[in-house]
Structures are given as structure tokens and as C-alpha cells.
């Protein structure tokens, strides 16, 4: 019973499950440890899982009768919002209708559990069916280190040893800090609170209201009044017979403006346009979770160490550049790469950082780090007051004037725009912003 594992993964979120799947498929002996009652029990996302990596983990997942996902996205909408109006950019295309889908909506408590079952199946088919485990309701208290090399984990009084440890503990990265990879103090500026309600509608009503067809779905991001001037934004995603409606809001900004996430969400829900969208719905779930701002500045100093890798949001791999929150897909890809690196290390018989640095190199080559690097300016811009306050007001103000037909002489839209700009911003600011935006997107 005391034999050593090839790898111990801490956290059965997206990153940990992805890593576990790759390890199981490659006949590695490992332990996946999750503190929740079951995988996904406390995890929160909006959420759309973007990209196509899911098909790498569960080939042809869309053919499963009861897959863990809700709907695929073929309809996207970005909405500017002020107190009474919304102005949206809307795109829908049948181009997105065929699998592999480029984005699926998931409810984490269902999705993670489903993926964990798939991992269990892979374990059962592996050489280590009896020696690899998924253990839930177990909290890892410490990553064991010897001469600055990770050698296993401790939970309560029990210690377990392994050649390598993957920390996939998510945003509250206590173990990451304990292992010395992250500063103890991460400023609150870089943390947001995400809260979300799952609202049930009659399935037929939902499908009609959102013009859904079969399992097609819509994603809608909101900026402006959704967070009432607080840094952040709102979202609405369609599930099978519910919608996920929520927002993310900067923790420090909220504190300064004396707003609570709960009040913000209520206000968002009471917006006339949102009311029309969710009318007749019943709230069946409420959840809250911290999410990182995705600012590269707070990325851990290193993502590896002797015998140790960091995957997913524990490594602050996340991006919120306005058009979507990407955390799950980054977590999935980093979990896959992390596991591949461990497999490679096992072949070499060397788990030192010399071998594990390969993980960082691979990550840098993928869209994950490329996007994070390239879109930093967009991230900063999105988190600037112009973006979550002035622009939505301006756009809606313009929209209101532009679309008003009131038996008075109609004015040129350029004039209307100028007026709106004057009211909510200045041309100079707008030019600066436009310039920044053009550069960053």
C-alpha cells in the first residue's frame, strides 16, 4: 500500500481531470485528490468551455447519449448596457453547427462529475486499474518537499509519495504559495468575485425565446450597467432548460464603491431587458467563486520546480479580454501538457526541473500563452473605467437617439454620436481608447 505513485494530482477541476485522463490513457500510476464531495461539487464557471480540447480527452464526446455538456454555441452576443437600454453586437452562424464544436456550455457540478467518470473508465482500462485512484472528500494540506523537490503530499496525518505532483488547485492557490511558487500576498486588484444563478425556464419557452435549435446555444456577455460602474461584466449562457446568469466584479473596486455582489446581481436581474429575458424563470441554484483577472503580472514566478508542475488557474492561466472568459480551456490545455510532460519525465526517469521545464516551453508555444501575452493590453483596457462605464453609456445613448423616430426632423447620426461622446467621454479619450483597442485586439 505504501508504494510510490508516478504522479499525484491535487484538485479534480478541469485542469486536474484533463491531466488525469492523459495519465490514465498512458498507463501511469497516479492519484487524483479532490476536496469536494465529488468532482465539481463546488466549482463554478459561467460557463462556456471554448476550443476543441474536450474532443482530445473524450473523442466524439458529442455522440454520448448523456454527455456532461449542455449546449454548443453557434450564437454570440456582446451587449453594452446602460440603466435602461442595451446595444448589442450579435453574430450567429450555422458554421458553428457541426462537431467538433468550438464552444460548449457546461454546468460544472454535472460536467466535472461526468468527466471524472470518464477518467475512472480510463483508469479501469489501464494497467493500474487497482493502483490508480480518484479520491474525493480529501483535502491536501501540504505538498511534501525534500531539498526543494516535491516528493508527495500530506492530508491530515497521512502522507503519500510520488515522483511528481501536479498542483491543479484552482484560483485559491494555497499550495502553490506554500511551495514557494507564488508570493504570499496577491493584491486584491487582481481578484474578482464571480456570482451566478441558474434559472430554470420551461424548455420550450427557453428554445423559443433564444431561437435555439436542438442543442444549439447562445452566449451573451454584457458590459456597463451589468456591474453598475464596477470593474467587470455580466454573462448569460443557455443550458438545456436553464440559463446561467451572472457577473464577475472586481473585489477591490466593489469594496471601494460599497457594492455587494449580491446587490449587483439583483440589480442586473432587474434591468428591463434582462427581465424580459428571464421572465417566468425560477432560480434553482446560486453560487459564487473567486476568479482571477488574468493579469500576467500575478502569474506565478515559475510553473514548475523539481517534481512539481502548476496547471490551470492555480498558475493564473486565465483571460478575460471582453469577448469571453477563458479559464476552463486554458486549464484543460495546461493539464494535458502537464501530464504529457510527466509521461516524458517518467520515460527519462528524471523528474527534475531540467525535464519539467519542457512544460513551460510547450505552454509558451500554444495559444494559451500566446494569447495571454498578446492580449494583455486588451485585458487592461477591459478593466479600465472607460470600458465598463463610459463606453456602454455612450453607445446606449447613441443608440437611443439613433433609433428614435419621433416626428421631429431626423438628425445626422454623426451629430448624435458627437453629442453622446460629449456627454459620456471626450473625443480625445475615445481616440486614445480606440488606438489602444486597435492595438490590443
Amino acid at each position, binding site marked *: *500500500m505504501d508504494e510510490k505513485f508516478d504522479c499525484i494530482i491535487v484538485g479534480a477541476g478541469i485542469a486536474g481531470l484533463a491531466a488525469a485522463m492523459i495519465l490514465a490513457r498512458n498507463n501511469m500510476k497516479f492519484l487524483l485528490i479532490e476536496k469536494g464531495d465529488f468532482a465539481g461539487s463546488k466549482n463554478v464557471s459561467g460557463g462556456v468551455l471554448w476550443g476543441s480540447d474536450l474532443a482530445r480527452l473524450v473523442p466524439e464526446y458529442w455522440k454520448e447519449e448523456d454527455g456532461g455538456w449542455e449546449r454548443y454555441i453557434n450564437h454570440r452576443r456582446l451587449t453594452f448596457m446602460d440603466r435602461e437600454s442595451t446595444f448589442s453586437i450579435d453574430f450567429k452562424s450555422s458554421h458553428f453547427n457541426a462537431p467538433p464544436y468550438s464552444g460548449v456550455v457546461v454546468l460544472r*457540478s454535472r460536467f466535472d462529475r461526468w468527466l471524472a467518470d470518464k477518467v475512472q473508465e480510463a483508469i479501469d482500462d489501464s494497467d493500474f486499474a487497482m493502483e490508480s485512484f480518484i479520491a474525493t472528500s480529501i483535502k491536501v494540506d501540504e505538498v511534501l518537499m525534500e531539498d526543494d523537490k516535491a516528493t508527495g503530499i500530506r492530508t491530515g496525518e497521512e502522507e503519500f509519495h510520488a515522483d511528481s505532483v501536479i498542483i491543479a488547485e484552482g484560483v485559491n492557490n494555497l499550495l502553490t504559495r506554500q511551495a514557494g511558487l507564488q508570493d504570499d500576498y496577491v493584491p486584491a486588484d487582481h481578484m474578482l468575485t464571480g456570482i451566478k444563478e441558474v434559472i430554470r425556464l420551461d424548455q420550450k419557452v427557453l428554445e423559443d425565446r433564444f431561437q435555439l435549435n436542438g442543442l444549439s446555444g447562445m452566449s451573451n456577455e454584457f458590459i456597463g450597467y451589468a456591474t453598475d460602474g464596477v470593474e467587470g461584466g455580466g454573462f448569460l449562457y443557455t443550458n438545456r432548460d436553464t440559463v446561467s446568469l451572472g457577473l464577475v466584479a472586481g473585489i477591490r473596486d466593489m469594496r471601494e464603491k460599497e457594492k455587494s455582489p449580491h446587490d449587483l446581481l439583483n440589480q442586473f436581474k432587474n434591468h428591463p431587458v434582462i427581465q424580459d429575458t428571464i421572465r417566468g424563470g425560477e432560480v434553482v441554484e446560486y453560487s459564487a467563486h473567486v476568479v482571477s483577472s488574468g493579469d500576467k503580472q500575478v502569474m506565478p514566478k515559475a510553473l514548475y520546480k523539481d517534481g512539481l508542475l502548476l496547471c490551470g488557474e492555480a498558475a493564473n492561466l486565465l483571460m478575460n479580454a471582453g469577448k469571453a472568459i477563458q479559464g476552463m480551456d486554458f486549464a484543460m490545455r495546461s493539464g494535458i501538457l502537464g501530464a504529457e510532460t510527466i509521461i516524458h519525465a517518467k520515460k527519462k526517469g528524471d523528474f527534475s526541473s531540467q525535464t519539467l521545464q519542457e512544460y513551460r516551453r510547450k505552454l509558451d508555444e500554444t495559444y494559451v500563452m500566446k494569447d495571454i501575452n498578446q492580449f494583455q493590453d486588451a485585458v487592461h483596457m477591459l478593466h479600465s473605467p472607460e470600458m465598463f462605464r463610459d463606453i456602454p453609456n455612450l453607445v446606449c445613448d447613441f443608440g437611443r437617439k439613433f433609433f428614435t423616430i419621433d416626428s421631429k426632423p431626423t438628425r445626422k447620426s454623426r451629430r448624435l454620436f458627437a453629442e453622446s461622446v460629449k456627454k459620456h467621454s471626450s473625443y480625445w479619450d475615445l481616440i486614445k481608447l480606440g488606438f489602444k483597442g486597435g492595438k490590443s485586439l
Partner: protein
Amino acid sequence: MKFYVCIKQVPDIDAPIQIKNGNLIQDTDRTVLNAYDASAVEEALVLTEKHGGEVEVVLIGPNQAKETIRKALAMGAHKATHIETREESYDSSVYASILASFFEDKDYDVISCGKQSQDTDAGLTGSMLAEHLDLPYSTNAVALSAQNGQLRVKRQGDAGQELIALPLPCLVSCSNDMNEPRIPSLKGIMQSKRKPMETIALDALEIDESALEAKTAVTGYREKPKREAGQKFEGEPEETARQVARLLDEEANVV
């Protein structure tokens, strides 16, 4: 002492549910070890740790219920029997008949059950099984101890608690007020995979057809008349307290 603990997999009552066309739909098909059975397992473990012996769990249910058996094994039960059924669930009297036929040729000191299923609150299986096996029994136990070849049961009755001594072999149904079930340790979870689990197909038990015929049926589900939240008073306690007291008198007429 040889304990058999009858355990059941039940839907997680905390998970959101809805009713569609009279059917009960759970948004997640989350299932758990019936909380009362978890207490029964815990107590059997405590007693065998003290007096020596063995704890075996028995579960009737579909293949997915193995997860629940593992949980009991991870807590520390020594072995398990899984009487595997197809998807559908039965009523208490059918479960009791199946269990009775399983126990027919078994040796044991104590059979423990949970006092009720968390989802249906039926509370019947335990005493039915005792009757089938012609065992002395007690239900709603809130504490157990073993002494002089007897099982001493503290039973929560209508008014007070009854201290009852049962000769062995006997049956007892357990309340969750009896203990805090242990959370399996990682070692426990790892060991659970290697513990003996025997799977018996329901057909292999050769039970009388008639015993498998349910005498009761659930014909549908319905929402409870919704209880709307009433008035909420926030403010000066002195004020609000007096106001509500007066409303209870004048508006609700209940004081």
C-alpha cells in the same frame, strides 16, 4: 461480533429537483449513501473495533450503486455484497423480501439498517426484515453498546428514551443522531478497492415472484403548495419585535 449493515444508495436530497409530467427529475443524478445507513456503518465499526469482529455491508441496487458500497468500504467495512438489480427501484416490502432471502443462510450477530431512507422517509424495511427473519429488533436507535452477549439499544421513543436489551442475533435500525459518520481517509479509499465485494444477480437469489411484486406504487409527483415568504422586518429590534407581536394578535389571530 458479526455485523451486517444494509445500506442503500439514495438521491442527494440537497440537489435541485423538478417535476416534469408527474415525473421526478434530478438535475444532476447525484446519489449518496443514505445518511442513516452511514450512521449504522459507523456504529458497527465502533463496536467491532471495541469488541472484535467484522462488518459486512449489503446493498440492493443497480450497477452504479457500487460507488456507494465503496464509500462504506472506505469508511472501514470489511466486505460487501452487492445484490444487483436492473434500473428500477422497489418499495420497502420488496427490498425487505430480497434481504430476507439473502440472510436466510447467513450467520450474524446483528443486522443493522438505517431507520429510514432519506428520500422517501418510509422507515419500514428494518422491522419488515426482522419479522421475515423472526428476529428481536428495535428501531430508531440513538445509541448502541454490546454487553454480556446482548445488544443494548437506546431507542428514541415518543416521549423519552427506552433502554432495551436485545438477545443476539437481532436487528436494529439506526438514527443519525447516534454518531457522526467518519469521513473516509485516503488510505481507506485506496484500500476499499481491494476489499472483497461479491456481486449477486437478483435472479440468482430465487425469490418468490410474488414477493417481488410491489403492493404499493408511486403514481406521480406534485409540487407542494408553495409557501410564499411573508413580510420581513428589518430595523430597530424594539420596534419590529413589538410590531410583529401585535400582528400575530391582530392580523394572524394566533396568540
